[in-house]
């Protein structure tokens, strides 16, 4: 069964450094998402992406964040200058279509900012 994959599984970085989190969505899916889960808290929406454009973003997704689909398979989340409060689990998800379609999640990347 097709799955969303994410790399790396864990990343440790110093405050102020740039990080890129990578995701490979399910191959026939057209909509891509990033969510964040700070330890012990609920999962929060960051951004959705379709047709090489951001279609929706939350207030969390400020200028420090960007997303990109650099090729036909990868979907990346970049944090330009990490802060301590960016430490969280980051989940990528994808869906066939928008609206009524189920979003399938990857295994997550655990980011720790020191």
């Amino acid at each position: 069964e097709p799955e969303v994959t994410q790399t790396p599984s864990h990343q440790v970085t110093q405050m102020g450094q740039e990080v890129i989190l990578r995701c490979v969505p399910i191959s026939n899916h057209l909509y891509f998402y990033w969510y964040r889960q700070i330890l012990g808290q609920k999962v929060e929406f960051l951004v959705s992406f379709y047709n090489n454009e951001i279609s929706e973003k939350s207030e969390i997704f400020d200028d420090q964040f960007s997303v990109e689909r650099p090729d036909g398979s990868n979907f990346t989340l970049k944090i330009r200058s990490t802060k301590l409060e960016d430490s969280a689990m980051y989940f990528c998800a994808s869906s066939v279509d928008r609206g009524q379609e189920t979003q399938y999640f990857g295994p997550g990347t655990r980011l720790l900012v020191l």
Partner: protein
Amino acid sequence: AQTVTQSQPEMSVQEAETVTLSCTYDTSESNYYLFWYKQPPSRQMILVIRQEAYKQQNATENRFSVNFQKAAKSFSLKISDSQLGDTAMYFCAFMTPQGGSEKLVFGKGTKLTVNP
């Protein structure tokens, strides 16, 4: 804004017994979808079950079923014949395509422990 509330931070159940996890939501929309996701210790988010608001029939998926009460805005998850592998965090989530939104709104989760 839509909100999802899970009022049980933790629950436990004996293996082979039945447990029900509660979820309520708040929305003024008529077209929406509800989901239960499971997050085991590995922290991967796994879809358990989904319900379309326009369907009156409650969704079932093997040992998992929901009790969807639209008027009460309630969406509880029943796990029958609980297994040790059901131990996980369970998140209720809401999504409405109204206004072009695609985001899932999650509750805070219920930590379920299945005891042998």
